């Protein structure tokens, strides 16, 4: 049985009252709720039938099969890639739900996490690429129930002249977290991590190139 309840929720299991700060999952608790211990709780017991009383405002519960089989994204797949305008690479991803119904993914968060060879914090992309980015990049705003998302790799805002050769890589993962899965911590989706390389090089003419997985584009700089 899984129970998500209000801060004053207490779970009475046998002779003791058990409570737990999210998002950990444990079975052998002996912590009672404190009136100042505000928050949302995630209480899980694998001993079905043992906990016999719940006190508090229960926000959400599940039991039986759904407790043992919480929904999470499956079959995460790159559906294809393409170009947007001159210089943006577009990748489209699709996924399904382990329950067979994507609506069951509403409680999940999905997004991406990008680190860079340039380091953490605010970084300037190497000359002649004009762009300033704060790493790591974290997005958590995908709509899991849609089963579909496009991801775009944009070019620098502009390029300094005279051009010179430069290259750097970002590393990207896609991930999710869902209640009841991995203690509600991030789970990396299959396929990654992806290396995204942006470079400027001379090949007869100066070119900007961006690549990731099976996709790439090259743009001749003016």
């Amino acid at each position, binding site marked *: 049985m899984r129970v*998500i309840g209000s801060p004053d929720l207490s779970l009475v299991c046998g002779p003791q009252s058990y409570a737990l700060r*999210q*998002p950990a999952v444990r079975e052998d608790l002996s912590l009672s709720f404190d009136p100042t211990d*505000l*928050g*949302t709780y995630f209480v899980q017991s694998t001993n079905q039938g043992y906990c016999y009383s719940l006190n508090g405002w229960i*926000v*959400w519960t599940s039991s039986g099969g759904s407790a043992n089989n919480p929904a999470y994204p499956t079959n995460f797949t790159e559906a294809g890639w393409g170009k*947007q305008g001159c210089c*943006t690479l*577009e990748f*489209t991803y699709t996924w399904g739900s382990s329950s067979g119904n994507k609506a069951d993914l*509403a*409680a*999940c*968060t999905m*997004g*991406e*996490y*990008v680190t860079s060879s340039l380091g*953490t*914090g*605010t970084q300037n992309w190497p000359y002649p690429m004009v*762009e300033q*980015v*704060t790493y*790591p*990049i*974290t*997005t*958590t*705003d*995908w*709509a*899991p*129930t*849609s089963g*579909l*998302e*496009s*991801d*775009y*790799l*944009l070019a620098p*805002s502009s390029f300094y002249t005279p051009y010179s050769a430069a290259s750097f890589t*970002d590393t*990207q993962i896609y991930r999710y*977290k869902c*209640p009841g899965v991995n203690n*509600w911590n991030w789970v990396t989706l299959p396929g990654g991590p992806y290396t995204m390389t942006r470079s400027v090089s001379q090949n007869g003419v100066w070119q900007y190139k961006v690549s990731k997985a099976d996709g790439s584009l090259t743009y001749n700089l003016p």
Partner: protein
Amino acid sequence: MRTSYRFLWCVFLLAWGVAPCSASVGRPAPAAGVTILFTIPESKVSLHEPVYIQFSIHNGLDEDVRFDMGLDGKHNLEFSVKKPDGSLIRIPPKPYPSVVSSNPAERAPLAPGRTFTKTMLLNEWYQFPTPGRYVVEAELGGQVETVSGTPTAPAPAQEIPIQVTPRDPERLKSVCEELRKGAMNIKNAWEASKAAFALSYVDDPIAVPFLGRVLKESFAGKYAAISGLARIGNPEAVQILTSYAETADPEMKLQVANALSEIRSRANK
């Protein structure tokens, strides 16, 4: 006032996000042609309250149409704001980050008779920093055309008035509390993150403890809370962020470090 809050919340719950829907939602008058409509559901707010704007486009033609809101679903929206003193400021498009994601459904052709509706947080573009009467001019940049390539008549910029009343701490607290509760929505993480996002744009010290609770307790709104605290950047916000500076979560530690760095950088300017 209570009705007003409820309305705000209903707008937030029901209309935030993407909704390709029947013509009854968004309520652009069905017309033979393409109708673009911007509305501000709550046209009277107190200072620093979130301001939402709803965009809708109705296809009254007998052919699918394409429109482009931008790769992130908002870049191509163009806003100007006439301030209470009469001056007009043109809001530059938000620069794209290096990686952008969005739902392809937002870029899909719109079928005949259908309406696409999306509600966004206008504070992302403009913060309405003083009380008074503002007029927001909104338009969709780029071309709307049929899938066969015929451009539709360009829609003129629409003017939408909004009244910002003086700062009302009690009302603002109430709004922040509603958003905080929304950010705790454990049944719908996407809605929770949107509530946290709206809270993060309440540019007022009153929001700090609410952001602190979201940072501590929300599953889906932690990063938005960090951004909000960085945006406010007062000593209380710094104190909360600093308390996470040595968290065992390496990812959050980096986000907090970046937020504190942003505050320091702003203070040094």
